[in-house]
């Protein structure tokens, strides 16, 4: 097991290293002059020289990469060109908000998804299965931004039950709880749909195995067979999908944050892209990639814990 964890961690570090090269190269990939691209054509010569030097464009690429990497490892990812602050300071207040929404939506969507998936698989072919599968399939295809707008229109603008946008931590503003309901619902829904689909198909695969038939023929109660024998095995492939889900939830929060005007990383990244604030874009991509890699590593280890065969592959 230790060997497996060491191997996977090594692979993850390699992936992070490759990603860091890609993220660094984002600046060099800008067509034309990167300084003009970041600051606009009407920049003064002094300002141009300052940024040119700051981006270390007067040095070779390799030197630039390693000095960028050394700075990044110290948490210094350069200065935001739109806020004129360190990118780490810009990100510090935003990362917790995005992580909060992603993790909360994850915690909500997993149990519901598994529950609906099992219900659907157990009732295979019956109307209940058809309804659950249909809803899950349709929900998985809905554009998240559109759905967010739809519920905002209905529950905030038409019915006036919930505040239409904004975000405050509940301990700062008591309205915070109400502000969270719609974004969380919207984010969780996609997660519930895909977990339902995955659990259903994995459950159907397991139910037809011989050992389930054996358990049934021994006269074990149906519920016991389903929840004790089948579900335990059916959840193994679901775990791999769950790792990806958290990454997708972070990506999904881009849209939800944009619709509900939540000051998280998503809205920051959109603003940074529109104003070509490349250091902030780099920092956002790096942060999201790091979280995804760590989650993937955690899922792989969890996977090896529940399915010992994986360790020996």
């Amino acid at each position, binding site marked *: 097991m230790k060997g497996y964890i060491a191997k996977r961690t090594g*692979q993850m570090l*390699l*992936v*992070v290293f*490759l*990603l860091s090269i*890609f*993220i660094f190269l*984002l600046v060099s*990939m*800008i*067509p034309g002059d990167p300084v003009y691209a970041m600051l606009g054509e009407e920049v003064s010569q002094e300002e141009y020289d300052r940024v040119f030097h700051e981006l270390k464009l007067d040095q070779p690429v390799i030197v630039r990469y390693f000095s960028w990497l050394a700075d990044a490892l110290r948490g210094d990812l350069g200065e935001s060109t739109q806020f004129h602050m360190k990118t780490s300071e810009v990100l510090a207040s935003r990362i917790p908000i995005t992580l909060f929404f992603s993790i909360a939506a994850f915690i909500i969507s997993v149990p519901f998804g598994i529950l609906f998936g099992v219900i659907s698989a157990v009732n*295979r*072919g019956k109307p209940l*299965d058809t309804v659950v*599968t249909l809803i899950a*399939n*349709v929900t998985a*295809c*809905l*554009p*998240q*931004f*559109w*759905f967010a*707008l*739809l519920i*905002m*229109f209905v529950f905030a*603008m038409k019915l006036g039950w919930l505040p239409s946008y904004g975000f405050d931590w509940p301990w700062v503003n008591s309205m915070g709880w109400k502000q969270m309901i719609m974004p969380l619902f919207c984010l969780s829904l996609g997660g519930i749909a895909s977990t339902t689909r995955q659990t259903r198909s994995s459950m159907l695969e397991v139910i037809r195995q011989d050992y389930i038939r054996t358990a049934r023929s021994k006269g074990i109660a149906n519920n016991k067979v389903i929840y004790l024998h089948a579900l335990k095995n059916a959840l193994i492939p679901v775990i791999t999908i769950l790792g990806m889900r958290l*990454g*997708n939830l*972070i*990506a999904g929060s*881009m*849209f939800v944050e*944009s*619709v509900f005007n939540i000051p998280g990383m998503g809205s920051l*990244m*959109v603003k*940074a*892209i*529109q104003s*070509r604030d*490349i250091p902030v*874009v780099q920092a*956002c*991509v790096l942060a*999201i*990639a790091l979280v*995804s*890699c760590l989650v*993937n590593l955690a899922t792989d280890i969890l996977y090896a814990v529940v399915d010992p065969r994986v360790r020996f592959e």
Partner: protein
Amino acid sequence: MKDTKNIKKFFKTVFARKVTIINAIIVLLFIFLALFAPFVAPYDPDKPDFAAFLQMPSTAHFLGTDNFGRDVLSRIIYGTRVSLIIGVLAVVVACAIGTVLGMIAGYFGGWIDDLITRLMEAVRAVPQIILAMALTAVFGSGIKNLAIILGISSMAGYVRMMRGQVLTIKQADYIMAGKLQGNKDFRLMFRHILPNSISPIIVMMTQQVGSTILAEAGLSFLGLGISAPTASWGSMVSEGRNYLMDNPVFALIPGVCVAILVISLNMLGDGVRDALDPRLRGEA
């Protein structure tokens, strides 16, 4: 002869289910709208009419008008073009690059395989939409750029699938025989391995068009994709969100179109997958 027989059999299996037929008709309808937009659309999609802005649906404007007085229905019809063109082009780009890289990785093995596999792991570590956003920051948007960006950000799946295919096919006797005959590597790869792994590629392509259209709509909604005045569904939702109280149809119907097209494409993709995979025939 045998090929046409197989193709006939394939279509027969695909369209054996009513659901697949319905979805195919819906997709064809969208393709028709995209192709014949100038003849179908009642108005010029880009022509503003300041005497008639933000009107609710009426007989003159079936879905009302937007904040510039442009006809929403006409803009939706023209928006079909953007969605379909980007959806299909991006999938072609992803498939072309991904298949070749996957084939090279699987065929040659060794350090080439390691390098490509690790690179693709790195690409997959970043969620598709984030990667696409980062690339639009650098290269800008527009139909051509978006197709390439969305293609690049979704190619990792093809690499992985194709690599797996090659690893299996490589073991087959006919590949060994081809090698012994003195065939060049690239000839073996493109003439023998590629045609034998065509069906999972087709399945993956049909299933990816939908998600690519969804991604394009998302980017356009965020203001990073197709921008004004070109009509695209995502940017229409984005423009319309500020006028939900005046004409909710303006923001909401383009989103419905995205959903219907994506659902139909995905279900059609599932139909194709089931028809090509005999184990899945007759299952939900």
